[in-house]
C-alpha cells in the first residue's frame, strides 16, 4: 500500500513525495476543508429539515488529490462523495448550494436529491444513483479521448460496494481491452451501507481485481493526499500515452453515516470509527504542512471559518428562493418538447392554478 505521509504528517516515503508548489499544497488543504465544511452544512441543514437528504463525505477528502493530478480538459466521473473534485475544478459554490435547496437557480432544475450534482462546464459528470453505471461510461469516454486524439483522459470514482456491480466488470474489461485512457479509482471505505467488505468480496484486497482484467493495479492509503495525487498522476500519464487504464484501490473510511437516512450504530462499532478518525486526511495533511512550515497552525481553522461564512451566506440566499417553475418538469426529456408533454404540461398547469 502506497503511503507517503503517516497519520502524524511525517514523510515516510520521501522518494515518492511529489514536488508540488507550496501555493498548490495550500490550495489542496483549502479545498479539502471546503468539502468538510460543506459536509457539516449539509448534515445540519438536513437535521433542521431545510433540505431533505444528505450524503456525508467526511473522512474521504483526500480525493481532492485526484483533481490536482489531472488536467482541466480531463473528464471526471464521480460516484457521489467527491465534491472536492468539482470544487477544485472551480464550480461555483453558489451552484452547489442552490442545488442543495433545489431552487430556481439550481443548474439541474431541482431534479435531484441534494448532493448529486454535475456540471458540464467543468467536465464533472452528473452522477447517477444506480451504483456502478459510471464506471463503464468512463471507459467509453476514455476510449473516445483516444479516438479523438485530444490527449485527455477520464477518471472515475466508485465505492467498494460498486466493485460487485455489473458495470464495474464491464467497465474494467472494456477499458482494458480497448486501452481506454481511463483511471479507475475505488474508494474502499470499508462499507456499502451496512454491508462490510468481507461480505462484498472474498478477496483480501480489492486491488487484486485488476489482475483478472490484465490491468495494472495499485493500492494506496486513501487518506493520504500525496498517495492519491501521485497514483492518479502516474495512472493518468500512462493513460494519456496510450498505455491503457489503471486500477487504484484507495483504502479509506466513511466516518459518518451512509446518508442522512442511515443509522450506522446498527452495524458497526464506534471503536472502529474512532480508530479511523485518527487517520482522517485533513488533520494529517495539515500536520504535514505545519511541520514543513508551509502554514501556521491556525491556518486550517482560518480556512474553516472562511468557508463557514461563505456557505452561510450562500445558504441564506438559496433558502429564500422559490422552487423551479412547473414548466421545468417537462423540459429536457428530449431536446424539444413533443406534443404529449405539451398536453401534460397544460394539464399540470390547470391543477396548480386551482
Amino acid at each position, binding site marked *: 500500500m502506497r503511503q507517503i505521509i503517516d497519520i502524524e504528517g511525517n514523510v515516510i516515503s520521501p522518494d515518492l513525495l511529489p514536488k508540488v508548489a507550496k501555493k498548490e499544497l495550500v490550495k489542496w488543504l483549502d479545498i479539502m476543508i471546503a468539502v468538510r465544511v460543506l459536509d457539516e452544512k449539509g448534515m445540519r441543514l438536513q437535521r433542521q429539515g431545510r433540505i431533505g437528504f444528505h450524503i456525508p463525505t467526511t473522512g474521504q477528502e483526500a480525493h481532492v488529490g485526484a483533481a490536482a493530478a489531472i488536467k482541466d480538459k480531463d473528464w471526471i466521473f464521480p460516484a457521489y462523495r467527491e465534491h472536492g473534485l468539482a470544487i477544485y475544478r472551480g464550480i461555483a459554490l453558489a451552484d452547489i448550494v442552490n442545488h442543495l435547496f433545489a431552487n430556481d437557480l439550481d443548474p439541474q432544475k431541482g431534479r435531484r436529491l441534494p448532493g448529486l450534482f454535475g456540471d458540464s462546464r467543468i467536465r464533472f459528470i452528473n452522477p447517477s444513483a444506480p451504483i456502478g453505471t459510471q464506471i463503464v461510461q468512463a471507459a467509453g469516454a476514455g476510449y473516445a479521448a483516444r479516438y479523438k486524439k485530444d490527449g485527455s483522459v477520464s477518471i472515475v470514482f466508485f465505492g467498494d460496494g460498486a466493485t460487485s*456491480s455489473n458495470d464495474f466488470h464491464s467497465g474494467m474489461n472494456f477499458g482494458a481491452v480497448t486501452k481506454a485512457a481511463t483511471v479507475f479509482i475505488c474508494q474502499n471505505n470499508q462499507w456499502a451501507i451496512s454491508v462490510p467488505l468481507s461480505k462484498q468480496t472474498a478477496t483480501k484486497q480489492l486491488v487484486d481485481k485488476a489482475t483478472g482484467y490484465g490491468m495494472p493495479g495499485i493500492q494506496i492509503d486513501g487518506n493520504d493526499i500525496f498517495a492519491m495525487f501521485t497514483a492518479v498522476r502516474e495512472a493518468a500519464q500512462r493513460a494519456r500515452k496510450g498505455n491503457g487504464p489503471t486500477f487504484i484501490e484507495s483504502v479509506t473510511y466513511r466516518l459518518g453515516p451512509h446518508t442522512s437516512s442511515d443509522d450506522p450504530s446498527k452495524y458497526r462499532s464506534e471503536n472502529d470509527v474512532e480508530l479511523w478518525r485518527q487517520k482522517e486526511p485533513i488533520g494529517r495533511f495539515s500536520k504535514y504542512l505545519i511541520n514543513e512550515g508551509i502554514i501556521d497552525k491556525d491556518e486550517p481553522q482560518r480556512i474553516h471559518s472562511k468557508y463557514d461564512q461563505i456557505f452561510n451566506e450562500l445558504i441564506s440566499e438559496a433558502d429564500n428562493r422559490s422552487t423551479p417553475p412547473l414548466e421545468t418538469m417537462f423540459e429536457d426529456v428530449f431536446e424539444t418538447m413533443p406534443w404529449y408533454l405539451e398536453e401534460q404540461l397544460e394539464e399540470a398547469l390547470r391543477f396548480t392554478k386551482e
Partner: protein
Amino acid sequence: MAELTIIEAVRLALDQEMARDESVVLLGEDIGPDGGVFRATQGLYEKYGGKRVLDTPLNESGIIGFAVGMALYGLRPVAEIQFADFIWPAMDQIVSEVAKFRYRSGGMFTVPMVIRTPYGGGVKGAIYHSQSPEAYFAHTPGLKIVIPSSPYDTKGLLAASIRDPDPVLFFEPKRIYRAFREEVPEEDYTIPLGQASVVRSGNDVTILAYGAMLHVAMDAAERAMEQHKIDCEVIDLRTLVPLDIETIEASVKKTGRVISVTESPKTAGFGAELSALVAERWIEYIESPIIRVTGYDTPFPFVLEHDYMPSAEKVLDGIIRSFNF
C-alpha cells in the same frame, strides 16, 4: 390481534412464512443486521441467522440469479430489491430466466420465488427512488404481479405469493408503508392471487387502482360523492397478473364509465392495458372517454413531485369529465 402498518405486515408475513417453512430464505442488500433500509426484515437476521437472511454483494442480477439457483434446488427464496428503481440490473435474470424457466423446460424446471421491492413516488425520493415499473413486468409472460394497498392485504398476499408455485413480483407501495394501521390477524391466512377487491361500491363511475393510488382514488371518490353526488365504484386490483377480469367486467357493465389511476408514466403504462381491455371487451357499455390518471411522461421529478403524481384533485376532475360527458 395487532394494529399494524404495511411495513410491519410485510415483516410479520416474512417471519411467519420462515417459521412455517424451512426452505424460505431471504436475500438482498442490507437486509441482515441493518434490518433493511425500510426495516422490512428487522429482527429476522437475529432470529433466523445469516444463512437464512443473507446480506448479498451489491448486484441485483446476482441477487435474482442466485435466487433462481436456490429455487431450482427447492428453496423458496424471497429476494429484496432495495428500491424498484434498482431492479434494472436484474432485468435479464427476471425476463429471460425467472419468467421463462418453466416454459422453456417444458415444465421440468420451475423457479417459484418472490421478488419484493418498495416502489412508487411521493416520498421525496427523486428520479431514482420513486419509480413504478409494474408495467414492464406485466408485459412479461410468466410473472405474477401483486401490489397490496393495506396492511391486512399485505400479509395475506405476501403469504400467498411465497407459497405460490410461480414467481411473483411483489411491489410494496413505500409511500404508505407507515401511513396507517389496521388490524392484522396473527393467524395464518392468505388472500388468493388474482382476486380484486371492491373497496367502494357505486353506480356511476368505475375507478381502477392499486397500491398507494388506491387511496388517492378513494379520496377522490368520497369527494365526488360529497361535492357532486357522483357515486363511484372503486376497485383495488391487488393482483395485476393474473387480473381479476370478472370483477372489472361486472363494474364496467354497471357504470359504463371507467377511470384508471396509476402513478407510472402514462405512455404504455398499466393504465393503457386496463383501457384497452375495456375498449376491446365492453365497448357497447361505455358512455364516456376511458380516462387514465397517471404520472407524466417524464423521469420522476424531485421538488415538483406533488405536481407530477396523480392526486385526488386530478382523479376528481376525471370523474367529473367522465360523468358529464
